[in-house]
Structures are given as C-alpha cells and as structure tokens.
C-alpha cells in the first residue's frame, strides 16, 4: 500500500519511450508458458466461471502452454496469495484472475510486486496509472442480450419480459437495458421487470425471483447471475421461455430455451498467450463485442419463429460489422430523464458503457 509514484512515473516514461510492444518480454522464453486461472466460484457452474474454464481447458491443448487453475477463491487478500503461489510455486508467467472484485487492490498490488509477470484481469477498468504488466479485458455481451431481446420480443405474448439480476452495477444494467431495447425494437409496448437478488450466487432467491417475475406476467426470462442454471430450470418448469447467459444452457430446457448470450474467451486468451510467448506485452485494455469474437450466440431453440430468426440474424449481421449502437439517443431512463441526447450513440467499445447507472424507459425496477 505504499506509494510508488516515482516508480510509476518511471514506468510510464519507460513505456512511452519503448512503445507498449517494446517492453522487455519474459526472459524464460525456452520453457513452456504457465498460465494461471483464478475463479471466484466453481468452474462448472453452467455460467460465468464455466465460460472461462472452458477456454482454459482448450488452452491446455496448445503447444508450450501449461494451465493451472484454482476455483472458489474469494475476493479478499486470499486471491493475492493465490496469484503469488501460482507465480512462486508453479512459475506462472501469465495470470487471468477472472472475477471483478479481484482487480483493485489485489491484482494491482500483485502486478507491482511481480513486474515480470503479466496480469490480465476480466472486467476491470485498467487505466494508465495502473502497472504496465497488468491489464483488463471484457466483452460487450449486452449485444447478445439485445439479440436475446429481439427473439424475446417476437416470442412474448404478454408483452412482459423478466430479468433476474444480481446487483445494480453497470455491467448488469447494460444487459437489462439491452434486453429490453432489443424486445422494444420488435414491439415498443413491451416492458421488462427486473428483480435484484443482491448476491451473485444464491439458488433459492434466484428461484423465488424467477417465480415472482412469472407471477407478475412475464413470459420470457433471462438473467445476469453467476450461475443461470436455477433461473433457466425454474422458468422452464413454470412454462416460461428463457434466454441463456454466460454459456449455452439449452440442455437444461431444450423446449423452452430460445437463444442465449455466451462468452467466447478462447480467442482472447489465445491472443494473450501468443503475445507473451512471442515476448510481446499483451494489450493492457481490451474491449470488444460480437464483431471482435468476444461474444457469441447460442443456437436457436425450437420455439423461435422464422420471423424472429430472420430479424435477429439481420441485426446480428449488422453487429458483426462493428460499431453497432444499442444505446442510441434520444433515450430516456425509466424515471423520465434523458440519458442520451438525440444524435448520440454508444458503440460497443464506448467507455461510457462502463459507468451506466440507469435503467431505460420501460424497465420496471430501480437502480
């Protein structure tokens, strides 16, 4: 926790002089690169952690790469020790701490302590004042939720759709907004009820929230919690349709699963690994959406109409070109305040999306 302004400035100057790619790479180029993954929950959770673990598993097949993993690491200083242990005992040269809460202060502290190891954190907001051997990456999965919303908009009969959310944070709010805006692109009369559970993983509360949404009339449900398994199964049992999140949950509800917004971390991880293996410093700040291959969609389920498929496929094709603006002015939040002025729009890499603090008009719920 000591201030290291001097070193930081020195580093900044150095980096500027060398150019980011010119930073001295790892000396140990001959041996295999050990890549460490840290997960906050179980790695087979049908959700967030699994999305990363699937990519980690695929990395194991690459030549010259060794993968070490640790699951259920809390967002306390335990994660710092986990990373240090991977570095000291396993010789890890590239670390992926995948939970948001790891970044500040733990990843930053570890990066300062181990300047030769590369840290790339999922979800964090790396800035110039953070160590150069740290960085962050994240995908604009709201594009997937927008496509979910389009399919939901074609499928809903009650014109009400529902969202089970963990906490009112920007990454979640983006998804809620996109889900409704996608549905409203089909029918502007559609509304979306959101229920916050307050925790990232709490099975009974997620089931209760799903039931409450369906009791309130919603007939298409999606969610943003760590493990969507409970929500998907509960909704399907109640006869509602579901859109997936994080990974493909269609095996859990083959008839009711419409489509889903999935992560595709493997290309990103492959890129980072290739950079480090080649002695380059991987990018410090990486963001992308469908077009960049960070996000993909589940295959359509049997209940999706032809019209819905055509509509979603067309929008997806637009998104694949890059620069698609889901959040586009004029846009009001659900309290009636204008949040985006007419003529302004936010494409997938817009930094403003990282600090969303509103729910758009038509969402029932409050931040």
């Amino acid at each position: 926790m000591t201030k290291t302004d001097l070193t930081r400035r020195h580093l900044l100057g150095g980096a500027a002089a060398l150019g980011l790619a010119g930073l001295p790479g790892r000396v140990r180029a001959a041996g295999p690169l050990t890549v460490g993954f840290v997960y906050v929950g179980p790695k087979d959770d049908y959700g967030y952690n699994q999305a990363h673990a699937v990519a980690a598993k695929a990395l194991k097949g690459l030549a010259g790469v060794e993968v070490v993993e640790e699951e259920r690491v809390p967002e306390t200083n335990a994660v710092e020790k986990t990373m240090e242990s991977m570095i000291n005992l396993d010789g890890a040269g590239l670390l992926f701490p995948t939970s948001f809460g790891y970044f500040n202060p733990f990843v930053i502290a570890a990066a300062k302590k181990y300047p030769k190891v590369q840290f790339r954190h999922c979800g964090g907001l790396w800035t110039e004042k953070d160590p150069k051997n740290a960085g962050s990456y994240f995908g604009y999965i709201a594009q997937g939720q927008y496509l979910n919303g389009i399919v939901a908009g074609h499928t809903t009969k009650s014109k009400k759709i529902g969202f089970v959310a963990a906490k009112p944070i920007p990454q979640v709010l983006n998804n809620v907004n996109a889900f409704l805006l996608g549905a409203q692109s089909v029918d502007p009369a559609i509304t979306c009820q959101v229920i916050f559970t307050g925790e990232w993983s709490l099975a009974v509360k997620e089931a209760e929230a799903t039931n409450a949404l369906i009791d309130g009339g919603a007939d298409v449900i999606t969610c943003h919690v760590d493990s969507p398994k409970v929500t998907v199964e509960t909704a399907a049992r109640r006869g509602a349709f579901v859109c997936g999140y994080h990974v493909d949950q269609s095996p859990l509800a083959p008839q009711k699963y419409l489509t889903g917004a999935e992560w595709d971390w493997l290309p990103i991880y492959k890129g980072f690994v290739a950079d480090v293996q080649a002695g380059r410093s991987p990018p410090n700040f990486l963001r992308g959406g469908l077009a960049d291959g960070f996000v993909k969609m589940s295959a359509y389920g049997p209940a999706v109409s032809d019209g819905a498929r055509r509509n979603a496929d067309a929008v997806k094709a637009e998104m694949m070109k890059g620069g698609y603006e889901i959040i586009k002015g004029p846009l009001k939040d659900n309290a009636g305040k204008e949040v985006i002025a007419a003529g302004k729009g936010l494409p997938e890499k817009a930094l403003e999306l990282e600090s969303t603090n509103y729910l758009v008009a038509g969402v029932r719920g409050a931040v």
Partner: protein
Amino acid sequence: MVADTAASRIAVVPRRPSAAVQVMAWLARRTEAVAIPLGAVLVGLALFSLFLLALGKSPAALVDLVWRGGFSSAFALQNSLQRAAPLLFAALCVALPARLGLVVIGGEGAIMLGGLAAAVVAPPLSAAPAPLVVGAMALAALLAGAVWIGAVGALKAYRGVDATIASLLMSYIAIAIANHLIEGPLRDPTSLNKPSTLPVGDANMLGPMPGLGVHWGLGAGVLACCLAWLLMERTTLGFSARIAGGNVRAAQIQGLPVRRLIVGFTALGGACAALAGFFEVAAVQGNANATLAAGYGFTGILVAFLARHNPLAIPPVALALGGLEASSGLIQRRMQLPDATILVLEGLLFLCLLVGETAYGRFKIFSPHLWASKKEAAA
C-alpha cells in the same frame, strides 16, 4: 480434574512428593495434552489417506503439498499467517462468550458492521493526521461490534432469548443492513462494478508488519488473544464468568452480577470480531464492500471450538487452519482435486480431535499418579 489428581496423590503418598516426582507428574500431564491431539491428527490423516487411496490419489503427495503450501517456506508461512489473522478475532468472538456457556455463532455480522463503521468514519476525517483517523476507525469498529453482539448478550440476560439463535439472526440482519448501506446511501458513486464505500485514503492504510509481510491484524490478534487469556484466567472477572458459565444459580447466590457479565463478555467478543472487519478495511480493502462477509466469522467458530475456547490455543489453531487453506490451492493445481478436499480434511481432523477428547485420562502412562507412585516405590 487437577483437584482430583491432587487429592489422590495426597491419599497415596502421605508425605510431600519430591521435586522430581512433581516434575514427572507435570510432564506426564503436559505430554498427554500434546500426545492425544497429535495421535488424533495422525488417525485423521490415516482415515483421509484411505479416502484418497480409494480415489487413486497419493496421500503422501497431499501431505507434502500441505507442508509446502502452508508451512515450509517464508512465502508459505506468510500465506498461512495472513489467512490466520482475521480468524484470531473471529474465534475470540466465540471463545469469550463461551466462558459464560453461551454459543455465539454470529461473528460474521459483527465483522461486516465493524468494517463498515471503520470505513464510514474515515472520509469525514480526511483532513486529520493518519494516526488519529486510524484510531477513530478502530474505535468506531469496536463500538459497532460491541453494541451488536452485546445486544445478543443483553437479549439473553434480560429477555432470556437464546444467544445462539439470536446471534445467527442478528448476523444475517447485520449483513443485510451493511449491504443495503454499501450499495445504497453510502455507495461511492465511482465504485462502478464493485459497490463500495468511499475509500479511507492511502495515507490511512496500515502497512505490513516489518519482516513478516503480513498486516498488523496478525499482531493485534495475537495480542488480543493474550489479553483475553489474562482476563479469563487471571482476573476476578474471568473467574466470576467461569462460575456463572458453570452454574448460573450458584453464581447468583454468590451475588455475582451474572447479567452484566453476560453483556460484558458478549460485547467484548463482538468488539474483537469487529476488529477483524476493521483490519480488512484498513489493511486490505481500503473501503467497505460486500466481501467483508468472506466467511471468517464461521471459520472462527471452528477455530474457537478446536482451541477448546482457550485464547492461548487460538493462534496456533488459526495458523494450522490458515496453513491448510493456504495449501488448498496447491492441492487443486497439482493433484486435480476439488477445492472441497481441504474441507473434508478439516472436518475429519476436527472429528478425530473431538473423539480424542474422550481419551484424556484413559492412558495410564500419562497419569501423574502413576509417575508419583512409581517414583516413590523406587525410592
């Protein structure tokens, strides 16, 4: 038990036993206190080895990894000590009320409230010198914890509400209140995806203990354990509490202030737990957020029971558990075993230690009486 042996010694050996005999008797008692838990741990490890062998994994490899991950190097020890630090305070929150016969299991809530209180007082004082701010933070935490768990004691003393259920309920309530405040009125608007209170400021953060690399919570925790031991074993207050814990009616007949003792000891326990929260904020996180409820309060219950509510036994037990947890990651990575492996091992070891409790006094070789009579017979 001590009185028992003393009595029997006097019965068998009428004259005052020689110094050598006394030493032998003392040694025998102490050896028993070490040998039985050690034997229990060995039995536990043997059982766990069978479990591992059944799964086709090597028990030797696991023991080696526990040693390497938790104890063998400076880094490993640092890792274990860091994990032990909050457990010291959390265990005291169980051990202090236990002296009065109360089973308090709600330390987690006090940790969270303590951390929140510490984080809340710092920003308004940002102009003050750092020691003052840190002192105010600690004080705020102490107060919050003392009031919260002290209320559990008060409910017990004045309303007859069971402390176990009350502390558990109050813990859930505390965590809910803290989460509400952290994500609502007290949220730092710039804490985007990790809702937190305003930062306490870099200047007010506690550094590591020199030479150890572990934050000051460790030193303070060991000190708190020593103080708690002194209070329990060397003061009238502690003695009164023990009487009240043994038999409330007897204590009341003696004129002991049982109710005030209950409130006092629970409040003290709560204050200890809250200090764990204070150090999480002031030495680790730099603000209060939902991760303050990281389960230390629940692991602390385990530590306290393993230490048999003896404050001096808490630090070594916490270190042992910290070491097991520190090695958990290595075991996951090297042996491809799930993270729950350590949980199974902990449960098994704890069970064996408890079964071991029954062995005290069963082995003649540890009996001071035996040593005394042998010596005398030889003489």
